[in-house]
């Protein structure tokens, strides 16, 4: 692509474009985790789900030629991982955080195992919509080339925000998350609700993985995810379990993740690797700033082990 010299304006523009591109997996993983955590469990295994979703989406897209079938495969794989987590955690003394760590290792291992033959071939991409077509400047066009999944993610955030407040199912998930005893008194089975909530959460994380391998960066490698699944868990806490907050936080994290490549694009190479640490440092600072030893977090589900 021919580049027009737009000077330092390139940095914020590249960061905006980067924020939109990089944030999409964060949006899906964090919305999925928000559903799971609202039901009172925490699934740290979404990192593994993300990687396995990326692999299965890529593999199916290579074999069938359809990125949408790949997306479906990733969602189904994620659903299976989520349901497994939800099922195994219902047994007494089985710790949801530890199982999450195990599933993180297992999901990544399984993805590497089955993904070996798919490192070479190339798969069709998920489509993007060129919102920047009005502009003549290639950088603007590149920044505003928005993938459909980003738009779906935004719509989903609004829908979930509405659904948690206004629907029967939303209420059930919140009750189970706040007090398993209250839920039992209402005749609900907390384990079933959590099973389904973790399953849906896993499916969304799988879709996030499909975005990684089918759009940006757009290929399957063993280093495709570097903690996005885990950062998304921290992000949900920062967003106070509010889906709209998750969306905003995901954009912020995406922008931080795009800082390194954006600076490199205008020729800043000093401390290049340090900028790659920006999203992790940002997550950590946000966690420090928003946690407090003396009070529980506003909006935290009462049954969640991570906030106790």
């Amino acid at each position, binding site marked *: 692509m021919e580049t027009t010299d737009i000077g330092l304006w390139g940095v914020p523009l590249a960061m905006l474009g980067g924020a939109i591109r990089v944030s999409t997996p964060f949006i899906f993983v964090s919305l999925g985790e928000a559903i799971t955590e609202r039901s009172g469990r925490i699934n*740290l295994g979404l990192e593994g789900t993300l990687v396995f979703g990326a692999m299965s989406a890529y593999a199916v897209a290579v074999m069938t030629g359809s990125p949408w079938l790949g997306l479906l495969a990733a969602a189904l794989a994620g659903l299976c991982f989520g349901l497994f987590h939800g099922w*195994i955690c219902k*047994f*007494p*003394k*089985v*710790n949801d*955080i*530890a*199982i999450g*760590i*195990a*599933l993180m*290792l*297992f*999901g*990544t*291992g*399984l993805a*590497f*195992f089955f993904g*070996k033959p798919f490192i070479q071939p190339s798969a069709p991409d998920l489509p993007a919509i060129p919102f920047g077509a009005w502009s003549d400047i290639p950088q603007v066009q590149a920044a505003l080339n928005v993938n459909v999944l980003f738009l779906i993610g935004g719509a989903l955030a609004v829908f979930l925000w509405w659904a948690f407040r206004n629907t029967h199912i939303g209420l059930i998930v919140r009750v189970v998350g706040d007090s398993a005893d209250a839920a039992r008194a209402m005749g609900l089975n907390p384990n079933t609700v959590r099973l389904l909530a973790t399953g849906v959460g896993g499916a969304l994380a799988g879709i996030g993985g499909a975005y990684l391998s089918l759009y940006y960066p757009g290929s399957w490698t063993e280093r495709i995810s*570097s*903690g996005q699944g*885990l*950062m998304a*868990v*921290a992000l949900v*806490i920062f967003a106070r379990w509010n889906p709209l907050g998750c969306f905003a936080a995901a954009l912020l994290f995406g922008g931080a993740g795009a800082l390194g490549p954006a600076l490199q694009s205008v020729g800043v190479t000093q*401390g*290049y*690797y*340090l900028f*790659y*640490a920006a999203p*992790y*440092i940002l*997550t*950590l600072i946000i*966690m*420090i700033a928003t*946690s*407090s*030893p003396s009070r529980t977090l506003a909006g935290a589900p009462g049954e969640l082990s*991570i906030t106790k």
Partner: protein
Amino acid sequence: MADTVSSPDVRTILDVGGYRTALEWTARRAEAFVIPLAALVVGMVLFSLFVLAVGKSPVQLYETMWRGGFGSWFSIQNSLSRSAPLLLAALCVALPARLGLVVIGGEGAIVLGGVAAAAIGVALNGAPSFLVILLMGVGGAAAGGIWIGVVGALRHYRAVNETISSLLMAYIAIALMNHLVEGPLRDPASLNKPSTQPLADIYRVGNIPGMEVHWGLVVGIIACVLSWLLIEKTRWGFAARIAGGNVRAAQVQGLAVGPLIVGFTALAGGFAGLAGMLEIAAVQGSANGSLAAGYGYTGILVAFLARHNPLAIIPVAILLGGIDASGGLIQRRMDLPDATVLVLQGMLFIVILFSETFYGRFKLFNPDLWQRPDFLRGNV
């Protein structure tokens, strides 16, 4: 024991020559061995099914694994070398676990410990070797200790979740290593694989006499034994176990929980940092990207398999070192991806965690529930 006090008469009648006492003693301790071993077997059976499903022979796989890990003196030495960093990395999980903390970012402490040790070794070039090696060890341990100690401090003083923060810190540590190794500390001569300047030979940690295994194994085993003594035999360990059970109760007792948490996490990170130093000084010879080889993550599995008991870590680390070591042979002989070992480890991890649910469920392991003879039933 409580039941001895409540029914001494029954005990005297049944305690013929201490036989029953010995049986009960065995039964109470057997649970901690039988359940993890059974879980290990179940995990291996499930993995066999997985191997069958991808069209390979599980028998051949386990045979290859045995040969690659423990089949010959050569492979045993290879496994032991790999278990050295695992011992220390597992302590980085097991020590905080005694306080109820799940720290999974040991990889970061390993990486920084390695970089710090390499920097010290290069900077002090020319000094006496014992001094430099000692300072490299201290520096590596300090770097790792500070890194994980911060995680503990954030946990106690700011209520930041230690599981997430430690993993974030690990990613930051790896970025920091890449920055240092590709920038300020880079040896201009290392072209393909950016590294720090190689350590002079006199600053390298050698092998145990008569073996092709470096001294890191001995260091790791000593660290495990000392950690066990710390937890089981000292008042700090006792305080840590109380705080791990119930923080409020510990505070009511006047225990300084904050320093306890920071101290234990710093010590844990120090061990992981030492693992990084040993990887530099005994294996790599310079700090480079190979430091992030995943020992920190396998260490998590080792610690959970050992149920956070430092003595149990020793055999488990050797077992997993052997499984790790056999990865290459499995890949070559059976045409399976190198990630096969990861799948097995993941399965074992899940089964072991699941087995937690069976503790206290079996009557066999609880003499208090054993059926008393009929003629005594009325009396007790």
